[in-house]
């Protein structure tokens, strides 16, 4: 029960919460029927999965990330969130990797659909980074901002409780500072946590966040607390592992569609599609209709897909984008250029996952820099 003499949490107010109270937060969310998803360690990586206890979190762990490299390492302290992002992003819960759209059953009129009846899960996301909040906002525009609305995304998204965490650690492949997507969390989260040595500083984002905090004992944040938060954000911003010059980036890429660098990166790219799987904003999917053995029922399934596959652009019998060069170019120019025309923002939030999880360590910040250095180069000019 909150101390009746303490001020009541309202949006925009800032509080100091003992670390142990995080468990109370989790419990309160679960009592309200939320499935709490948070970071935990599985098979040597920090991923997102359901958590019940604070001890499920990777306390005292950090990650070392570089192009094609990811290792966990023990920290010298017991930070709860002392690491960057792992191979999972929150998109797997809002835009599931595999989703049944319905089951067709033969009948007299031909067939009828049995729509999936399970209600949308109610998630609480614990530990959403600034870049990830931007990524969620981007997916909101993709799936709910256009002439059509995706009902699956909308149902899951509307109920989500978001607890953001402002990064104390900048990853080896992070560049949110360049992209303007962090480390400070944008508005939209219900609660924004910043972890200091001895406590969490909690900023209330919404009425819903305030209501949850009303039941948690905490004290108003002091000036020193706020200063510590700002100092930490500044330090994190300075420690970014990568950086990207985004000056006029769409125009740069549009005028360099025949740049020799695409051919060069294609020599390295395996077109494995890892980058699209780990990217928090890649949204492409395919739809499959699969009949059962008796042929009386056929399920329609939606499944994540990647523009790196050769089948992706099969039209009238052959792929339009056949070469690795064309497929890599499509991914990068969509992410950094055409996304603007389609959705009004960049598609990239600077999380660095594509760099870390690329088996050959292709680094899009490096590719963009290379094109920028030799803006206007063409193969003919090079050969002369």
């Amino acid at each position, binding site marked *: 029960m909150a101390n009746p003499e303490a001020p009541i949490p309202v949006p925009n107010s800032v509080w100091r919460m003992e670390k142990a109270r995080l468990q109370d937060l989790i419990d309160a969310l679960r009592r309200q029927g939320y499935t709490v998803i948070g970071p935990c360690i599985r098979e040597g990586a920090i991923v997102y999965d359901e958590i019940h206890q604070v001890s499920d979190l990777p306390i005292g762990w950090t990650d070392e990330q570089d192009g094609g490299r990811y290792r966990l390492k023990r920290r010298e302290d017991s930070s709860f969130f002392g690491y960057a992002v792992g191979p999972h992003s929150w998109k797997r819960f809002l835009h599931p990797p595999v989703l049944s759209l319905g089951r067709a059953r033969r009948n007299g009129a031909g067939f009828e659909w049995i729509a999936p009846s399970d209600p949308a899960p109610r998630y609480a996301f614990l530990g959403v980074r600034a870049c990830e909040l931007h990524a969620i906002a981007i997916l909101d525009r993709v799936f709910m901002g256009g*002439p*059509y609305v995706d*009902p699956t995304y*909308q149902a899951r998204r509307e109920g989500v409780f978001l607890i953001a965490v402002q990064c104390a650690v900048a990853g080896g492949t992070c560049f949110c500072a360049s992209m303007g997507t962090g480390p400070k969390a944008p508005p939209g989260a219900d609660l924004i946590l910043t972890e200091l040595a001895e406590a969490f500083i909690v900023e209330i984002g919404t009425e819903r966040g305030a209501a949850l905090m009303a039941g948690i004992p905490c004290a108003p944040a002091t000036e020193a607390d706020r200063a510590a938060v700002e100092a930490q954000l500044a330090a994190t911003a300075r420690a970014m592992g990568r950086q990207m010059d985004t000056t006029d980036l769409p125009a740069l890429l549009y005028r360099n569609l025949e740049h020799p660098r695409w051919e060069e990166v294609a020599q390295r790219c395996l077109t494995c599609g890892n980058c699209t799987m780990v990217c928090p904003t890649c949204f492409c999917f395919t739809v499959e*209709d*699969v009949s059962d053995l008796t042929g009386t029922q056929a399920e329609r399934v939606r499944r994540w897909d990647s523009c790196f596959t050769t089948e992706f652009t099969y039209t009238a019998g052959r792929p339009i984008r056949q070469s690795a060069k*064309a497929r890599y170019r499509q991914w990068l120019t969509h992410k950094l250029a055409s996304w603007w025309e*389609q959705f009004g923002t960049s598609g990239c939030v600077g999380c660095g996952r594509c760099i870390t999880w690329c088996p050959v360590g292709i680094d899009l910040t490096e590719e963009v820099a290379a094109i920028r250095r030799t803006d206007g180069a063409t193969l003919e000019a090079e050969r002369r």
Partner: protein
Amino acid sequence: MIPSPTHPSAPTLERFLPTPYPVTGIRRETGDTVTLRLRPPEGRPSAFQPGQFNMLYLFGIGEVPISISGVHPRSGDLEHTVRAVGSVTRALARLRKGDVVGVRGPFGKGWPLEEAKGHDILILAGGIGLAPLRPALQHILAHRSEYKQVVLLYGARTPADLLYPAELERWRGRLDLQVFVTVDRGDEAWRGHIGVVTTLLPLAERLLDFRKAFILMCGPEVMMRVAARELEDRKVPPERIFLSLERNMKCAVGFCGHCQFGPVFICRDGPVFPLGRVRPLLEVREL
């Protein structure tokens, strides 16, 4: 104004699950192409804009985007001309009267028939590209006085590959429509034009003022790219040249990402585009 039956704001599952339509007729057009007639069930809208497409579904096999190629005059059933090139289209081409096809749609942006009122119209069709243009021509002929000079240029591979031959004859017989047909290769009986369809442009030039006409075209992308250049040489403004593009589609509503062509989604921003919107994209290899 042709009413648009799409109600995009409702996030209903209906957008994503096909409705069964019975096949009320099937006509073999050529060796590998048929025209299916589908009857919308009670309560399902049958209005569409020429140039739009439906996603046609066969139980347990899959879905493909097929342009609506016309309206059957007596029944009002929707016609779809399908070329058998893959597993779904081959199965569609083997259907019989009474079979059932799942339908989702109509989707996409159609031909600018409102904007084109009061102008000369040139329709340039290559191969199966005539299919999405046919409902446009049907509409124009049904409202003939609202348009000026109308010319159809149609190219097919061989005389045996000509679509809608009976209709072509009727169109050729009309005094208010000029029809020129060419084939890439003739046969013993063919005494008409032989050559690619763009070779017919000079014939159209004698009948229309290209600088003021609306040009509607559909066919292989190479054909449209070449034709676009020849039309630009003849000073046709790009905002009056329209083409219909195609790409792989899964969802038809701009979510699955498959149909992207540069920044445009063919399913939602097209399939009909004014040339200005896509001109630079057509020049990029493997875009």
